[in-house]
């Protein structure tokens, strides 16, 4: 039997490992990824465990690697992916080497970075000084301009002239400030110095690099003139407050020129030194980039191993580590082999011991999936993890899910688009996987590529049956409808209906799917399609639910719940069959027994012919409601029969009565048998029960096994009551719920038609060469709407409705979903999640 039908059989094992061999063995198990370890010291906190030191060392190494990685990223050096194989977990003694390597690399890098930063700061200062010297030159030149002298005289007036040359001596400071601070700086200066200073500023055109953050910033050069020492201190304070850097600037033009020369040479020297430092840094990083992914893998593996070892118990003699783990029963052999490999690698002589343990605990649920089935399994897990060994709905979902989706999404064109997209993802699987596109939406699509492919293929099939391709139809086999109206009728009537009771209809249907004529019958296409789609929704729904109930039988048989078969499964399936499956049968009866009169008998009024004509066809829904209410159809027409087949009334009454009788069986059956069981046990004497209870309290772990007997009988009643009400009411509401198949399918078809009529038709009808251009534009719009709304959005909504039909309507019939997931210790999973976390 395939393992996907039920979760794997699991055993709890005890594992004795020699201290020296433990590391190697756990490493082997991690590569295998089939063992889930249990924490044996849950009351010990993380800091008191045995290998906490090693874990800490690994953390430290990981931190260094992350630092390295950040630096590599900053320089834009490509990091090499390890092609193919992952490196194995290194030996514990290799850890020291690794640590030393990382330590060295980190120190080197830090030193280089520090140097580079100091150099850059120096460089910045020099460039700023260079700019100051260059820009202030302009200001000084202006000052020296003889025409200004007069201005000065007029400005200062008599007083200035009287004060004489000595007091007119102006001091100045020059510096550099961030450009955005200039306005505030200027205002502050004006206010604080009461307008007694003179500020000139000029922008530095090229951005400068800030060495601490390595951002590009724009700065301005300024020069402030003032008079007197008091103002000088004030100005300096303000400059400090605005983080402006001040530079000494000689007054004499000759000094300035000399200084500028000196600055230029120093800048050049610095540039060469900086270049060399960068080269060195680059070389170090390139070397590191080659190995960094490898190192990450190694460190993470070591860390994972020590984490796992921390879960183990230490033997009294300290020679041996004891672990408890869940293991799939089928894989015991492979695990034994892995353990042996581990022991050989560590050179230990004593083999590890793997002991099966008896337990009353519920084992974890584990379903072995492959790349095809895992997506479907995840759909189920998203609802709830299967109870241990319960029937798994995933294998059936593989087909029923795309099928129900396709009933709602039935369109050959849209289905083909979806199938092509799915096929492309499956075909390019490996290269796409290698690309590692980390967009959430993409990973959802890519994860569900097989679902998408199947949904597309099924949509193409249902689209063919609905005869719907972008809201047009295909006439492959030749329509069954003909026009027999003559020319005058055709010209005088706008709308004409073909009569099935004549040779308008060839008396045998279109062999595959809906007749193409219906797509053209804009006047009553919806009436016909609604009747058809509503019926198939209910038919499919009832079959789906019946299938679910049958799966519950398989569960009962497997868990040997004989009573449940009699008082749960049988009444449940009878209830569903007698009421809802009967309704489905009525639909088929209606399809076969009412219709056009036999050929050559067209349009007669013979009562036996009329009785089986469309005129007498009853409504299924009314018939069903009347059946539930034990009523006759009051609106029966004169010639027509009241019933669809002989004895219908009796059969219906019987069915309803039996179905109603099933309800008390479901409600009281199980509690009754449990009560009877308890009484019998009580009669046999209390001794064994008491003994078991004592054992249970002494053994601790064994206690839950006996819980069932002591269950409160009222609780059983309440539970069963809820269950029964849920099922009975559920049958009605779930059947109605399947009508969403019809509703969504109708909506999809209508939207596609609107898109065609409103857009593409306009383009196709426009004449002349402008029409070509028009069509070009309109087609783009139509294609965009088709893909974005009809395929993507409608696809999403149909997907969600299908999901609901599976989770609620289908799985509620048999699936408890009360288990917990098997989470094996596996390097693959750990590395994957670590890799995603960092991105």
């Amino acid at each position, binding site marked *: 039997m395939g393992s996907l039908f039920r979760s794997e059989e699991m055993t709890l094992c005890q594992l004795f490992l020699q201290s020296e061999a433990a590391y190697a063995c756990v490493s082997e198990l991690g590569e295998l990824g089939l063992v889930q370890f249990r924490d044996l010291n849950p009351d010990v906190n993380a800091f008191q465990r045995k290998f906490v030191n090693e874990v800490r060392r690994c953390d430290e190494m990981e931190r260094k690697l992350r630092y390295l990685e950040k630096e590599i990223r900053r320089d834009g050096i490509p990091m090499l992916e390890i092609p193919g194989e992952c490196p194995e977990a290194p030996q514990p003694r290799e850890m020291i080497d690794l640590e030393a390597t990382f330590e060295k690399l980190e120190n080197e890098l830090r030193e280089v970075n520090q140097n580079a930063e100091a150099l850059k700061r120096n460089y910045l200062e020099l460039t700023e000084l260079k700019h100051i010297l260059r820009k202030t030159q302009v200001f000084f030149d202006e000052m020296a301009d003889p025409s200004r002298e007069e201005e000065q005289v007029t400005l200062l007036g008599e007083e200035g002239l009287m004060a004489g040359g000595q007091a007119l001596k102006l001091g100045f400071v020059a510096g550099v400030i961030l450009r955005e601070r200039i306005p505030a700086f200027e205002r502050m200066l004006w206010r604080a110095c009461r307008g007694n200073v003179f500020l000139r500023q000029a922008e530095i055109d090229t951005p400068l690099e800030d060495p601490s953050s390595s951002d590009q910033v724009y700065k301005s050069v300024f020069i402030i003139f003032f008079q007197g020492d008091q103002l000088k201190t004030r100005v300096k304070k303000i400059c400090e407050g605005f983080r402006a850097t001040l530079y000494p600037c000689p007054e004499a033009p000759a000094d300035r020129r000399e200084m500028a020369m000196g600055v230029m040479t120093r800048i050049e020297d610095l540039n060469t030194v900086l270049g060399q430092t960068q080269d060195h840094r680059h070389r170090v990083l390139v070397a590191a980039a080659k190995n960094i992914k490898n190192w990450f893998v190694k460190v993470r593996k070591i860390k994972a191993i020590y984490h796992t070892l921390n879960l183990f118990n230490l033997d009294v003699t300290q020679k041996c580590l004891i672990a408890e783990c869940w293991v799939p029963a089928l894989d015991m052999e492979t695990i034994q082999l892995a353990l042996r490999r581990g022991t050989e690698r560590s050179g230990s002589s004593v083999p590890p011991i793997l002991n099966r343990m008896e337990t009353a605990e519920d084992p974890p649920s584990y379903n072995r999936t492959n790349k095809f089935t895992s997506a479907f399994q995840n759909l189920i897990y998203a609802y709830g993890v299967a109870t241990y060994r319960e029937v798994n709905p995933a294998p*059936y979902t593989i087909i029923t899910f795309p099928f129900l989706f396709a009933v709602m999404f039935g369109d050959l064109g849209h289905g083909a688009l979806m199938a092509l997209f799915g096929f492309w993802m499956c075909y390019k699987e490996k290269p796409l996987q290698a690309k590692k596109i980390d967009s959430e939406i993409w990973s959802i699509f890519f994860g569900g590529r097989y679902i998408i492919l199947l949904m597309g293929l099924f949509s193409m099939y249902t689209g063919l049956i609905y005869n719907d391709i972008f809201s047009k139809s295909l006439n492959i086999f030749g329509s069954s409808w*003909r026009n027999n109206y003559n020319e005058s009728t055709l010209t005088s009537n706008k709308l004409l209906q073909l009569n099935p009771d004549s040779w308008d209809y060839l008396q045998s249907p279109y062999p595959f799917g809906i007749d193409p004529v219906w797509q053209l019958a804009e006047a009553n296409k919806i009436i016909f399609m609604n009747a058809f789609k509503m019926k198939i929704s209910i038919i499919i729904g009832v079959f789906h639910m019946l299938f679910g109930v049958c799966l519950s039988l398989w569960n009962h048989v497997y868990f040997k719940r004989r009573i449940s078969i009699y008082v749960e499964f049988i009444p449940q399936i009878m209830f569903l069959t007698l009421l809802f499956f009967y309704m489905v049968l009525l639909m088929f009866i209606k399809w*076969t027994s009412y219709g056009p009169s036999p050929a050559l008998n067209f349009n007669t009024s013979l009562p036996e012919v009329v009785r089986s004509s469309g005129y007498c066809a009853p409504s299924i829904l009314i018939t069903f409601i009347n059946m539930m209410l034990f009523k006759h159809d009051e609106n029966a027409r004169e010639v027509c029969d009241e019933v669809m087949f002989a004895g219908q009334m009796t059969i219906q009454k019987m069915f309803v009565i039996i179905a109603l009788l099933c309800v008390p069986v479901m409600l009281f059956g199980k509690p009754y048998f449990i009560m009877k069981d308890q009484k019998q046990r009580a009669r046999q004497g209390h001794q064994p029960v008491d003994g078991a209870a004592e054992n249970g309290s002494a053994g601790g772990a064994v206690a839950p096994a006996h819980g069932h007997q002591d269950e409160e009988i009222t609780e059983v009643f309440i539970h069963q009551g809820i269950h029964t009400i849920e099922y009975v009411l559920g049958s009605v509401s779930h059947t109605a719920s399947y009508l969403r198949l019809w509703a969504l399918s109708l909506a999809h078809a209508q939207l596609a038609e609107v898109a065609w009529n409103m857009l593409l038709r306009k383009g196709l009808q426009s004449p002349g060469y402008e029409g070509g251009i028009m069509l070009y534009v309109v087609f783009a719009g139509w294609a965009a709407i088709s893909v974005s709304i009809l395929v993507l959005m409608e696809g999403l909504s149909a997907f969600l409705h299908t999901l609901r039909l599976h989770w609620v309507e289908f799985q509620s019939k048999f699936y408890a979903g009360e288990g917990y997931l098997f989470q094996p210790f596996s390097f693959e999973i750990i590395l994957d999640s670590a890799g995603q976390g960092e991105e």
Partner: protein
Amino acid sequence: MGASVVPIAVFTILWGIVGIVCPFFAPKGPNRGIIQVVLMLTAATCWLFWLCAYMAQMNPLIGPRLDNETLIWISHTWGNRIK
């Protein structure tokens, strides 16, 4: 009764082969069970869907109501000359 034997036989046999015969030839291996279930369910769902579409049209109760232009076009292209 407007059923004709050929299409019913053809499609039933076609899906019967997929759903009943093919599962016997499913490749051996751990996935045999899954492949069988997939084949059987595909055949069952597709056959049921086709059957419903076929039976719903076997005895039509109403005929399509068409525009006269469409009718003229139908006569023209589907090969039934207007009298």
